[in-house]
């Protein structure tokens, strides 16, 4: 068996490898046992019926604008359940193809009660900051509590309009 006098060197040899494997096995066994017990406990507990999203004909929400403008996204939600639903939309950060990340400040009602059979329209106004680099920004509108229910969002931001020469002369 090779023994090193270097304190930082990792121990080698068949016994240390066996010890390493055994430790790893014990740790994974404990973790998996815990996971199994958690799932067993959850499975036996009373169900909490939830809500899921049935996708519409579109493949998400799209908008386009220039920095300084405000784009509007609109989403219709129809409650086909037999009891009231709650809708609380939240945006994820939007990431452009060039790598810029935009944390939009959306203007929307954060909470909506939807009665059975009712259709409600969610409207989100997204002001595009003046410093936002041009590009195609993608993200999602998360409807919390709907089991990973989210709507894809795409906002195309164009370059700001060039200042006219005439306007410059006047200034």
């Amino acid at each position, binding site marked *: 068996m090779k023994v090193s006098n270097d304190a930082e060197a990792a121990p080698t040899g068949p016994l240390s490898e066996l010890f390493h494997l055994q430790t790893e096995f014990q740790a994974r066994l404990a973790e998996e046992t815990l996971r199994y017990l*958690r799932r067993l406990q959850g499975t036996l*507990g009373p*169900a909490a019926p939830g809500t899921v999203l049935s996708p519409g004909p*579109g493949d998400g929400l799209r908008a386009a604008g220039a920095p300084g*403008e405000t784009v509007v996204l609109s989403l219709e939600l129809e409650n086909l359940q037999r009891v009231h639903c709650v809708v609380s939309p939240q945006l994820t950060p939007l990431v452009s193809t060039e790598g810029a990340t935009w944390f939009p400040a959306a203007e929307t009602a954060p909470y909506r009660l939807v009665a059975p059979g009712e259709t409600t329209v969610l409207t989100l106004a997204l002001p595009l900051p003046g410093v936002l680099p041009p590009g195609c920004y993608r993200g999602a509108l998360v409807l919390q509590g709907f089991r990973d229910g989210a709507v894809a969002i795409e906002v195309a931001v164009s370059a700001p309009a060039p200042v006219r020469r005439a306007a410059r002369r006047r200034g």
Partner: protein
Amino acid sequence: MSPATADRLRLVDAPDESRTTTTLVASLAGRLGVLPLVSGAMAVGSLVSGFAALGRQVGRTVEGAQLRRALEAGRPGVNGPVLWRALRLDELAASAAPSPVLDQLRNDLALLLAGDLDETLALMPIPPQPAGASVPDAGPRPEFLDCMLGMWAFGRELAWAVEALAAPTLDPAGAVETGAPPAREAPGPVLR
């Protein structure tokens, strides 16, 4: 403002689940019925684990991500996890199944607005359906910041829910009432 596309989505029942007044009453009764059978540690652990699961979802949104980043950068981002591990709250939460706290809150709220509650309660006791395969995977080990974000999201939704319930019959701000205020209790023999 520039124009945008609109999409239309439907809110429906999850597969093999039905969200009706009967199933919601059964779910609430089932939760209360289980309480005497489980330990306090398990009940609290399940709630903490549920808040952490909610916090993980919320952390993906703009508000949640910003809040999490701000908390991480300050002293709570250091002291919280230290307390979490020292008091073994991580083990408490990791050993319990996450409680679907948001679904439960929304289901209980829907019961307060149900038009057929009396008829449904007349059918009691209604056996609850076990969660079975519908229970989500517990996910990674619960963390302090996830739990904190989850409690924030839950608290915010609870406040919105109470306001939404009261809104249809709420007096407008600045209202003035003249005359004697209505008596809240029937006068007893002492007051007569």
